[in-house]
């Protein structure tokens, strides 16, 4: 993107959400939720539709009043059930899923609106609008109406409109979901770069886990109005806190197993017909307990079939389906007990249907949940 020069104030813009509940009639959209977003952080609220992520974002924006709990930014209390600072006095920016670019205003008028409201002098406003339009690569389109812009350009107008007032916090509600795949990918990079450069605290809502992983410092995976897990993308992906998170964060195999040895990191679980693999157990697991082992297809390695009992961590199986996907090979393997699992391996490998293989589990890449 273009020239630097759009930034934010010096105030601390961490967001403290404390035990917030929001109900609509009988439905609880956000349930007793606490979340601390650090200053200058990029946090994504990730979850399927109906998980409460957009409600949470709108609570932060001040469009809704919580039934319980509080939302603060720095030392300032913004939302409690008793009183809510209206959106226009929060000094935040927000980008909507449908862009919400005003169709009756030109690009310039759209972007300059926030400055007019703040009574910024005309000359000053002109300079700031020019700067921010350059930042989002829209210089030269000031006189156009939104109907004359592409979807991606409208999205940039929405971004510019939020950025020009130099907010400390920017809220983004699925801003890329209406763009085509290629443009979406490019806007990802631009957003990430923008956040790094401006130091604005980003709160980003999406249902797309790859988008969340590409952008975020931390991801809050939401389900049923609660945060299931909060952590860095890598952690959430490789060590999901529960089955819901594991399932939502991409492809995952869930295998039934039974605990053979329960001693911390040195534990063993039998899968695929009494074959032991080494994994870390959840606290409180006991020997003999039925569990589920979650492992992502790309974390599995396929080796030559092990002779005899084999080393712990390798389970014999038979290839039943092979699909060539270009960069990888996607295959289905049946274990001795009939469990079918999916593995993704390097496309250089040659695999045949019917071939017997050893499926190697990596203890650091596998998670165990109680069944």
């Amino acid at each position: 993107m273009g020239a630097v020069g759009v930034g934010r104030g010096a105030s601390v813009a961490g967001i403290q959400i404390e035990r917030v509940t929001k109900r609509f009639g009988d439905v609880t959209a956000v349930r007793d939720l606490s979340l601390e977003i650090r200053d200058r952080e990029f946090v994504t609220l990730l979850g399927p539709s109906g998980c409460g992520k957009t409600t949470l974002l709108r609570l932060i924006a001040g469009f809704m009043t919580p039934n319980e709990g509080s939302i603060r930014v720095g030392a300032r209390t913004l939302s409690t059930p008793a009183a809510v600072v209206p959106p226009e006095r929060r000094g935040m920016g927000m980008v909507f899923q449908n862009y919400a670019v005003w169709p009756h205003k030109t690009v310039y008028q759209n972007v300059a609106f926030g400055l007019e409201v703040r009574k910024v002098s005309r000359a000053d406003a002109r300079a700031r609008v020019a700067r921010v339009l350059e930042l989002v690569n829209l210089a030269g389109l000031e006189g156009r109406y939104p109907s004359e812009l592409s979807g991606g350009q409208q999205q940039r107008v929405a971004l510019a409109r939020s950025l020009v007032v130099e907010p400390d916090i920017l809220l983004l509600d699925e801003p890329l979901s209406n763009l085509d795949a290629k443009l979406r990918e490019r806007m990802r990079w631009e957003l990430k770069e923008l956040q790094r450069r401006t130091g604005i605290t980003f709160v980003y809502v999406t249902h797309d886990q790859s988008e969340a992983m590409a952008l975020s410092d931390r991801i809050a995976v939401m389900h049923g109005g609660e945060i299931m897990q909060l952590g860095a993308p890598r952690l959430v992906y490789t060590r999901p806190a529960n089955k819901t998170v594991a399932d939502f964060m991409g492809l995952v195999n869930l295998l039934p197993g039974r605990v053979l040895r329960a001693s911390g990191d040195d534990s063993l679980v039998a899968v695929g017909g009494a074959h032991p693999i080494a994994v870390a157990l959840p606290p409180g697991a006991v020997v003999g307990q039925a569990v589920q082992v979650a492992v992502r297809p790309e974390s599995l390695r396929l080796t030559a079939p092990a002779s005899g009992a084999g080393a712990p961590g390798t389970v014999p199986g038979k290839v039943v389906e092979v699909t060539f996907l270009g960069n990888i090979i996607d295959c289905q393997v049946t274990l001795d007990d009939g469990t079918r699992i999916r593995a993704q391996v390097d496309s250089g490998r040659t695999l045949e249907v019917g071939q017997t293989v050893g499926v190697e589990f990596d203890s650091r890449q596998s998670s165990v949940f109680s069944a």
Partner: protein
Amino acid sequence: MAGSVLALAVLVVLPLAFLGWGSVTADGRLTLANFRDALSSRLYVQALRNSLVLGLATAVLSVAIGLPLAWAVSRTNVPGRSFIHLTAVVSYLTPPFLTAIAFVNLFSPRAGLINRFFRETLGMPGLTFDVFSMAGLILVTVPHTFPFVYLLAASALESVDASMEESAQILGASRWRTALAVTGPLVAPAILSGALVAFVNAIALFGSQAIVGLPGRVFTLPTRIYALFDYPPQYGLASALSLIFVGLTVAALYLQRRYLARRSYVTLGGKGSRPQLVDLGPARWGVFAFCVAVFAVTVAAPYLTLLAVSVSRSWGLHFWENLTLQHYRFVLLEYDVTRRAIWNSLILASATATLAVLLGSFVGWLDLRTTLRGRKLLDYVSLIPLGLPGIVVAVALIQFWLRVPLPIYGTLLIILLAYTGRYVPLGVRSANAAFRQIDPSLEESARVTGAGWLRTFCSVTLPLARPGLFAGWLLVFVPALQELSASVLLFSSGSITLAVAVYNLYETGALGPVAALAIVTMLIITAALALATRLGRGHGGAGIPRGERGTVAQ
């Protein structure tokens, strides 16, 4: 909120309550005597029967005319489709009393031009037609009701997803089979609903029923109610008859709502393509001839007749030999009653349209953008007048304001209240539609950007809603300018309106001035339409295509 509640209470709820109360009391005591009288006297039973016959015949004929036109315009390659559409729209806009007066000039038993032509020129008195009859009443009413069927059926026919019909055809159904098995059921609710709206409007048209019905002693509910206000006025009986009338109207509207609710699946087609147009071949000229005939009867005949009457010194077979502008000079410059009436109607129509849209905006905005308790009820209450014929609104207002110690009876104010009450549903519907198409996020992003409630409303909501609100304004202005049913009971010499002046002139037999005034009325309506269309379009020069707005604010 409080303001809207108060306004609706004064405009709608209280007058209705007093109407109800007045219908069950006589000399201050509770009684059902009024209803007994209304339902036992041959006079009123006959009126009820006539109203029903008129409504049903009109509804059937409206379908017979409106449906072929709708089908021709939306599904065939008939020539002159925009001309056909225009015919329906002009018929819809034409004041009903205007059509009635025009046909009286053509078909009154002795002086009617066409009747005289048959009798005197051709010597075939058997071909004459008496307009002062039920048949005549139906003839002058249908031109104002078939557009309802036309508009509803055309939009339904256009919104049927082509793929629904194509899947029937690919399965082997012929064109007719497809029309019967797929298209018909899909659009039937719209047609029935159009017929019911035609019924409701037909029985409420006081103007045609008074002008054509009274001379022929074809009495209907509105004209009977009107007659009850002759000295000595019988308020109780009038109230009871009004409520029976409302019952009829509400029943029809209730049926219509149910059919419309079923219609929703027509539009579910989504992104479907437009249906293919039927190539009629040479038959299209036959269809076109039918359309021209409709145009001739509903538009050309009334307008040409009135124009001719308005410029001829004496109406007759050789009217063109004595052309004059004296009737125009009379109604515009000399006769102070008509001059006053023109001003009164302009003021009333503008004020009514403004009030109805303003009130509609409040109600619509409360309904769509707030979570206040009772906002839905407000919305429903504002729709009640849809079920109230104009003359009933007048009776209700008289019942109410005669009992309230405010001397507004006989002033422009009571007419303004009647108009606003009658047309507030149109204001509410338009405002609701205008606000509904503005995605809330457009307003929310202004809030987040730092604009307060008022600033957001003025710089985002209002500019975006403006075309819709303007359309609503016009939708109220046009019928208010030609309103007769309520005004005819509420006017005084100082507050006379355009339509009442036309009606009074007609009763004195001054046909030339009547025609001139009718043409003036139509010119005002045309000018208002042209002006408002220009004002309502675009945003400060640079217009935004309608479709685009739809895609942005989905």
